[in-house]
Each structure stands twice: as C-alpha cells, then as structure tokens.
C-alpha cells in the first residue's frame, strides 16, 4: 500500500486521465458490439438457412470461434493484423493495434451474438412465419418485417448482459497495448508503484458500469419468460 500516493485519486488531471481511459473503454465496447452485431446477424441467418451448404459452414464457424479463448483472438489480430492484410491490401498496409484488438474481440462476440439472435428467432411461434407467408411475404420480408422485430425485443436483456462481458473484455485489448481503462491504471502504477490503489480504483469504475448494466438487464428480463429462455439458450456465453 502507498498512502503517500492517495492524493493522486483526487487530483483533477489524474482523474481526467482515468476518465479518458474510461471513455476509450466505452468506445471500444460500442465499436465491438456494433461490428459483432452485423456479423452475428449474418451468421445467425446463415445458420438458420435451409440449404445445408450455407448452414453447416456457419455452424462450424460459430462453434469453433466460440470455443477459442477471446484473448487468443485479440492477441492474434492485434499483433498480426497488419501482416494478415498485406497480401490483399499491399505491403504498406498497417493495421493499428486498436482496430486489431477490436476485430479480435468482435469476432468472438459475433459468434456469441449469433447464438443469441438464433435463439431469439427460434423461440418465436411457428405460426408467425406461417401467417406471414400466407399473407404473401417472401422469405426475406418475413424475416425482416415479422420475425426480426419481434426477436430483437426478446434479445435485448441477453445482449445487454453480453455487453457487460464485452466491457470486461476490453481490458484484454488494453493488455496488447491499446489505451483504455485498465491501461490507464497500468500507466499510473508503473510510474508511482501503487498497483493496489490504481487497480482497485479502476475495478470500482468497471464495477460501477457493469453492475448497473447487469441490474438493468435483469430488471428488463424480470417477468419476461421468453427473454429468459433466449438467454438460457445462449447460456455458454454468460461466463467470460
């Protein structure tokens, strides 16, 4: 313990530094969830496809990516992202660590979100599809106008609890050298040798946002049995 460094945590410029890291954490999380929602939606639709040539590869991708540690993906894309793009985008291509980390994180999250989205669509009664088809909607129209709007509402709590997982996982993006909340603590404690105080301080910030979000998602889920089922169907994602 370093009581002589406690004044740091009331110093406005140090607090501003932590706030910058906090903002960066939020930015990474939002970028990751936006990217992975788009990719996850595609994967979920592919997994629900009637053609097995689309369904099987999508299932394989989802299951394999979900079984990999997210840190492996972040390390791989964060460090090797530039050399991966060079054959396609020319020898001068350079992927910043930031986007490499975000891509690794979103790749993993998209597999999880694909499962949540699929569970949401599957949980709707068959009559919805049949009624839509009988009214003359095509397969795309049925999905876009009938099934997805209903399924999305059921997925909100599960996706919010996934968001808390993403916020915690941004610390892994910090570990490969991107500035964010955990990294800001690391920068402080390598200068002032106060890891206990600095890490406790950021863990309270992490706790504040993750706890609020998880309570909010629990509140939304309360009394909504379908939403609870959707979350349970994608349960493997809950610990991360």
């Amino acid at each position, binding site marked *: 313990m370093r009581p002589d460094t406690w004044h740091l945590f009331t110093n406005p410029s140090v607090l501003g530094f932590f706030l910058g890291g906090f903002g960066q954490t939020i930015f990474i999380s939002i970028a990751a969830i936006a990217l992975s929602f788009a990719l996850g939606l595609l994967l979920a639709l592919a997994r629900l496809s009637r053609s097995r040539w689309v369904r099987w590869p999508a299932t394989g991708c989802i299951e394999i990516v979900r*079984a990999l540690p997210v840190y*492996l993906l972040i*390390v791989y894309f964060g460090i*090797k992202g530039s050399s991966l793009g060079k054959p396609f985008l020319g020898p001068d291509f350079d992927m910043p660590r930031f986007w490499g980390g975000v891509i690794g994180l979103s790749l993993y999250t998209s597999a999880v979100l694909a499962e949540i989205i699929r569970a949401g669509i599957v949980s709707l009664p068959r009559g919805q599809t049949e009624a839509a088809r009988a009214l003359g909607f095509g397969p795309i129209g049925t999905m876009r106008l009938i099934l997805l709007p209903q399924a999305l509402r059921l997925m909100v709590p599960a996706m919010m609890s996934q968001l808390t997982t993403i916020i915690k996982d941004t610390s892994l993006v910090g570990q490969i050298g991107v500035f964010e909340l955990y990294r800001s603590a690391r920068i402080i404690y390598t200068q002032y040798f106060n890891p206990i105080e600095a890490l406790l301080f950021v*863990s309270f910030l992490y706790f504040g946002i993750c*706890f609020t979000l998880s309570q909010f998602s629990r509140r939304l889920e309360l009394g909504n049995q379908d939403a609870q089922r959707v979350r349970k169907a994608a349960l493997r994602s809950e610990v*991360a």
Partner: protein
Amino acid sequence: MPFGIIFEYPDQYLFPGGLWVTIELSVVSLLGSLVLGTVIALFRISPLTPFRVIGVAYVEFFRNTPLLVQLFFLFFGLPLLGIRLSDDAFEFNFRAALLGLTLYHGAYVAEVVRSGLLGVDRGQIEAARSLGLSYAQMLRFVQLPQSFRVVIPPLGNIFTALVKNTSLATTIGVAELLNAGEVVESRTFRAIEAYGAVAVLYLALVLPLAAGVNWLERRLQVVR
C-alpha cells in the same frame, strides 16, 4: 511441414508442456472454485443477514470486474501486502493465476449453486427440519444432494469458460498454452502456424467438453 513447429520444441513448450499447464490450471482452479462457490452460495441463502451481505458483495464484485484486473491485482498486490505464495518466481506466477481463476469463477459457481439450492422444494426443507435435523444436517443430507442434478450442466458451462480463461494466465507469466504459442512465434516468426497450433489445442480441449456438457444437459433434463 508448416505445422512442424508444434513438435519442434518437444515437451518444453506447446505440446505437451503448455497444454499440460493449461489442464493443470483448469482442473485445480475448477476444484477450488467449486468449494469456494458452494461456501459462498451457502452464505447467500443463510438466514443470517451479515452472511448474506458478504455473499452478495463477493459475487457482484468478482463478477463485475475484469479477470485481467483481478489477476494483476494478485500478481502485484500479494507481495506488497506481505503474502508470499512461493519463493520461486515461476511457482508464484502459477499460484497467483490459480488463486485469481478460483476467486473469479467461484463467484459464478456460487450463483449457479445458489439457484440450484433455491430450486429445492420448500416442503423438503420444512419436512427435514420438522423431523429434527439441524440446519447443517438439512443442508448436508437434503438440500445440497437434491440440487446437484440441476447444477451439473451450468457448472459444465462454467468449466468450459474456465478452460478458455486460463489463457489470461499468460499475462502474468505462466507458461501455459497461449504463452507457449507466443514464445514459439517470437522464435520462429511463424505466427499463423504457432497461433494456429495453439487454437487447435484449445479446440481439442474445449469442443469435447462443450459437447459433453450438451449431452449431460439433455440427459439430465429427461430424468427431471
């Protein structure tokens, strides 16, 4: 042979060295978190308010902060607080990782065990109490055994997550699978092969485990 590097550093790095450390970390911290989680779950359903408060605080704090921050807290914090897990540096890293993984997953285990315990019919508890069993006996002979069946599949899910999370131990210098991959990559500059081999070894651990959990889940559901 591009994937020859899996075997190029035999029994020192990737295979079986790193794989073995990952398995060791997973199994030992699973056992630890089962014990810890059960204790915390008993705290959470205790009739005494202070115990319940401790249980809730523990679970919510450890679930809502990143595992990475917890690991670094233990890694730097324990020596500063005067707690010496081991005199050997490598052994210290390993034990700190073990402790961090146990504490983090113990919180998840506690939630699962708690919901299993609450799932036991109230009549069972009341009947046991009125037959003259003490609270401890009731837990031991009635409530805990009946919750096992419900608890097994979600515990399996926690175990798969735990195996994947052992990869974070590389950040505090434990020579597990991902760390071995990083070493091989930095020596050979063959990232695709090194990380590919790590990925394959992780899949070899996690996919059968996940399949097993799915199978158990279906089997236990029929019995219920």
